[in-house]
């Protein structure tokens, strides 16, 4: 108690703004949803990693210039029989990655259906990214890049072909999403609360690290 008079460290807020977003992963079973996120989360950012009990829920931060964007990543079960449960997961999500496997056209069709559903039923301002995963299996490609690219443009999605295996475009994808997120988010109460002067991370780590390996 004798230290009460010595002042509190409340004033030392980090310079960076911290925004937190819920990101939901959708896509058919076995298209590599978890691998993609794991590559992102574990890839090169061990320092930022938050320990979670399993890979179905992961959290990871991305630094932009003046903002730290923290994603809470909600994985969903891709099996059709669990399809009807998805709204519970994407409810309130501010971002979504819809993943398909470039070697399986049916997963692309399924991805389109997800996009349609999200645009209809999810939060109106949700940022949707389409990821053509398993880009390393180019020789087995059955979904052409142009086709997916055109679809994404028409639908107003971010699009990248990715490979969780080689890490191709994985960080880029999340960075692109992070850039597209509204930085004055009003949807996320967590975000709002954490702005009441909360230092989530070591400010040094935030300021000295450049982001996403770029």
């Amino acid at each position, binding site marked *: *108690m*004798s230290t*009460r*008079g*010595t002042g*509190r*460290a*409340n004033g030392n807020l980090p310079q960076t703004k911290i925004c937190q977003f*819920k990101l939901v*992963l959708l896509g058919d*079973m*076995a298209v590599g*949803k*978890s691998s993609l*996120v*794991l590559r992102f989360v574990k890839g090169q950012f061990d320092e930022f990693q938050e320990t979670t*009990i*399993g*890979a*179905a*829920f992961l*959290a990871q931060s991305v630094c932009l210039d003046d903002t730290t964007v923290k994603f*809470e990543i*909600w*994985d*969903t*079960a*891709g*099996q*059709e*029989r*669990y399809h*009807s*449960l998805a*709204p*519970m*997961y994407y*409810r*309130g999500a501010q971002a979504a990655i819809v993943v398909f496997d470039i070697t399986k056209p*049916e997963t692309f*069709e*399924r991805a389109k*259906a997800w996009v349609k559903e999200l645009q*209809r*039923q999810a939060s109106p301002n949700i940022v949707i990214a389409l990821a053509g995963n398993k880009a390393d299996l180019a020789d087995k490609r059955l979904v052409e890049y142009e086709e997916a690219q055109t679809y994404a443009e028409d639908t107003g999605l971010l699009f990248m072909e990715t490979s969780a295996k080689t890490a191709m475009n994985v960080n880029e994808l999340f960075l692109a999403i992070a850039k597209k997120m509204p930085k*004055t*988010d*009003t949807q*996320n*109460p*967590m*975000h*709002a*609360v*954490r*702005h*009441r*002067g*909360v*230092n989530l991370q070591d400010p040094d780590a935030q300021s000295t690290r450049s982001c996403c390996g770029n």
Partner: protein
Amino acid sequence: MMKEPKDETENNENRKNISSTVPNGISGDPAKTLGLLHGLRVCQDAWAPKSPWDRHGAHTALWGRPAGSFLVVQGSLSQDQLLCVSVGDSGEPVKEFSIMTTEKALRLTASHLAFPDLFQLLHFYTLSRDVLPVCLLVPSWVYTLKNLPDHLVPLLGPKTWLCPSSDLQAKSSMTPETAETAETVMCTIQVTAASGAMCFINPLYLHEHGDDWLTHSSANPVRHPLRRDKRLSTTRTWEGRGLKKRSSSPAEDCSTFNNDRGSFEKTPVTPSTTPGGVVLRRASGTSKEDPLKRASTDSIQSPLPQSPHRVSWIEDKIWLNSPLPSSQLQPPCLELDSLSVSSIEEESEPALSPSPSLPSHRFQLADKMKNRLSAVGQAIGGLMSPQRRLSNRVQEMAERKSGAFAEAVREFIEQTLTSEPTPEITYTEMLQEVRSSLTALREILFDSTEIQSITDSFGDTPDFELDSMLELALHKVALKPVYSHLYVCLKTARRDDGTLQRLEANKSILEDRNLEELEGAAGAGVPDSSVMEKILQRWTAMHEAYSPSKKVGTLLKVCKNIYHSMNANAKPGTVFGADDFLPCLTWVLLRSDVATLQVDTDYMMELLDPMQLQGEGGYYLTSLYAALFYISSFRPRVAKQQLSAEAHRSLSQWHRRRTLHCNQSRRSRNRRTIRRHGSSNGNRRTSEERNSLKASTESSSLTDDKSDTHESLQGLDEELQVLKEEEEGSADREQVQLPETIITSPQIDEKDRAVRVSWNERS
């Protein structure tokens, strides 16, 4: 304001029998004061040596030192500290004075003068003896410490502190060093008889802080403006029920700024926000003054600017002409410790009347005892974990029947226990009511100075952590008394809407399925019998907990068990995502008491702080809810399209409701309600439901129109599934009631039926 030296002498006469060797009075040079405060701060290790030092060490070190030399060490039993002072008396050379840490401040146990920190306390006692036999003596080099290079400061230890040769201004060993400046003494400590009270005035403090804080009671004491500013909340009184606003929290700062007030109010920090200053505590001796004046606060409230420092022994001995209360120079009556606050209050306040306007003598007594208890509790509190301290204080506040918080809690409990789901009020509405009441109660706590004085001592704890700590504390006082009742209501409602029956029935259809049949990943393990046993125990523990937060904690442990089993025999490096986890969770649920789990899940979903619906806990709670929904809605015979349409409809309602709920909680920074049934809010809710219905209608019709290829593929799957079911001979059991809604109320059912009719017409 200037005093004549003779006044002081007169007024100190009653102290002369103790010691007349050290006069009160000292130079009031503010620069010097600041120097001293700074110096004390810098060399704290020198005068308050850490652990190996105890009172024995201090006694030894102080033996033979000039009178007034002192050290502060930890007390042997409590967290409280001891001020050991050399008094230069041959009989008892060193005396001890325990320093009590009360909720807002520090004070010597024997005195009633409280200070915001130890430095100011010590500074005061270099100027005034109050209950000490001598003034404290500070080596003069302390005043110049601000000029000392930082790296030298750690070298200053108790030896330096006490070394008589280290330029102590000990010209006279019985005089404080500052006595050398006696010619310039402006007599900071004054005696005045302003407004009938004889008291000391320290113009220095008056100059620093003004005197407006004097008119504030200790119910509204020293606050940390930082916390206030962070929350930007106004303090307002609890009106029992009804709206409780946190006028504009930073939640709106960066977001929903356009709340109903339209603008921020940077709340002018209340005048009581005094960064430093002295908290006055009333003397605990029997007071003969007007009871009205002192009825319910512990502080001295006077209409006029008065003394920053009112020395307690004068107050009682001269001013009040009462015999010196024996308790005053003694530690708090420890025999009271065995009494619980509540038992005292039961006796002292039979009626629940919140009006303290005519306090009885017993009332005052109870107040006093509470004060004592809380002081003791505070002392012990130092040893407890922050959560424990908060919880204890919240508990205490909830039992203090005259308090606003206790009143609100009591009303909440009363109201909740008498409410039951009716055709008009669904159980979800009922639980939402409970949730918003909890949030409102938490706001009261957050704004309470008592709680702030505790949380301020936690240092830089983020507000959301404080919220969850308060939430936990609140669960104990508010949810614990009502949770059995809520469970009964929930269970009845879930039975009435057929969910529990459907769960049980479908469980028996599905329970023989292995993980592959649930489309779990090949290679993922399922819990073996011993892990399953453990999980069942955890489910039981989860069920028995009354706190939704604790329940979620247990749920996470179960999920961890499941992950562990999945990984047990998997190839190293395999990582299981939701594709694998959800089937596995479903598999586990099919071997658990699904009906109980459903009720537990409802309880958590509705009562968990919306903040905690985020993050990992939120994710796995959603998964639990989803898996239960999968089981309860499993209907192999129904064509896929219909299932999908219905699922979408009810989920959309659920979504809508939860979003509303979430928004509500988000907005609840401005809009806090403990609603009464049949209140005017009913209209609003109805219109919300209408909207929700509209939304669901739209979504289900859209779903209908959907004719994607995967739908027909899925239809095929389902047919195959049906064939399989029939082979299994479970067809008879499929005559389960169609799930009207998953979570909606009977009230909505009627409208839902209309929706389905329209849907049927189309198909």
